[in-house]
């Protein structure tokens, strides 16, 4: 019996590979787009304009305050009412990018605010332009604070990508769901699904921990 199930599982490995591929592609695209957008939003939010930073803050709160599943449903089912037809893949990318951008925005804001004002004042006094100040003085120092939670955010993003299976995208979780209909052994099937995610996520978790320790040590007291 267990042999039959294992054989049947082995037969569905092309499907599993496709699912893993979908999870990786979804995560990767929205990770890159979300990081760019998140940094942009974070820099805008710490800029002087009250209106812009207020709007960004409100949007970030809306996204942080609602479940990702509900956001996906909203994008997938409501944007068509505004005449924007979306396939599930695009809807998934939009939802994940938006989610990542909002969380990364908060991380970037915390990083920028951690840079001492003296640094900014010194840059001003040296006659650096706004862009130079950001690129050469503030961001390099902010990165120490930004980097560890940023990597942690990537792990969250990969895990959240599993929720897009709810609108029918065949990612790793969806593959598990499909396979379990044929091979009625949920423990084994979803254990293997878990292994798939673990292989992708665990190295990133380790990296985040290492960065945290290194950045902390570089920043902390002098060790004798």
């Amino acid at each position: 019996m267990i042999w039959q199930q294992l054989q049947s599982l082995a037969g569905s490995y092309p499907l599993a590979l496709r699912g893993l591929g979908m999870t990786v592609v979804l995560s990767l695209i929205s990770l890159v787009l979300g990081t760019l957008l998140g940094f942009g939003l974070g820099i805008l939010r710490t800029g002087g304009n009250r209106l812009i930073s207020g709007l960004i803050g409100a949007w970030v709160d809306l996204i942080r305050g609602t479940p990702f599943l509900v956001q996906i449903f909203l994008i997938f089912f409501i944007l068509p009412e505004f005449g924007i037809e979306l396939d599930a893949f695009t809807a998934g990318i939009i939802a994940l990018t938006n989610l990542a951008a909002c969380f990364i925005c908060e991380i970037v804001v915390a990083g920028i605010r951690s840079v001492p004002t003296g640094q900014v004042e010194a840059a001003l006094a040296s006659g650096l332009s706004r862009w130079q100040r950001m690129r050469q003085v503030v961001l390099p120092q902010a990165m120490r604070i930004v980097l560890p939670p940023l990597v942690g955010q990537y792990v969250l993003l990969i895990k959240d990508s599993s929720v897009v299976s709810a609108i029918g995208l065949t990612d790793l979780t969806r593959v598990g769901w499909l396979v379990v209909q044929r091979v009625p052994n949920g423990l084994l099937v979803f254990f293997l699904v878990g292994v798939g995610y673990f292989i992708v996520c665990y190295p990133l978790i380790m990296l985040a921990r290492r960065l945290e320790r290194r950045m902390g040590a570089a920043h902390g007291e002098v060790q004798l």
Partner: protein
Amino acid sequence: MLENFSFRTIVEYLPLFGQGLVTTVWLSALSFVGALIVGIVLCAMNLQRGWLFRVPAKAYIDAVRATPLLAQLYFLYFGLPRLGFVLPELVVGILALSLNSGAYIAEIIRAGILSIPRGQVEASVASGMTYVQRMRLVVLPQAFKVTIPPLLGQAIVLVKDSALLSLISVSELTRAGQLLASDRFMPAEGFLTIAAFYLLLYYGLKGLAGLSSRWLGTAGART
């Protein structure tokens, strides 16, 4: 566009949304209590010197943190019956949320305990306190203060995560939205309404977190 947006239908479905909201609140609360218990046990195991308890606790925490909640939920939902436990969906959902959040809470508590300066522990050892006295009188009261704000943050995450239970057809808030969307073909009305309800819960918990950190902050400054 949304020119056909029907507030009347929302009002008509309000009792359903109300039930969903109530279910979401109590099942989240119950799961949070469960997660606290799981977290405290895991953290106690993780802080042991011997490997016998520490290694399994660490492995569990890493496994939970490196896999999505949805996969964990399906693991229990499709897997438990196989082990002979045929449980209602609601119970499976609460179990999944507790086991998942517990791993995160274990790390929060650990960070709180490790944030206590070593000198405090050494001083209490020098004063001749036993392990239990040391924990109860010195370490835990201080760790408590540090852990409350991140614990409330985890509670927010838990409430949002509970939306996934709709996928195993637990009739909570998101499920109510899905019902309206599929019965009347009104996804906008259904999902925007539940989004508003979730925001209500979010701002409530966020306000509580802000309040607690201010309260704990001033309490800390006084000593």
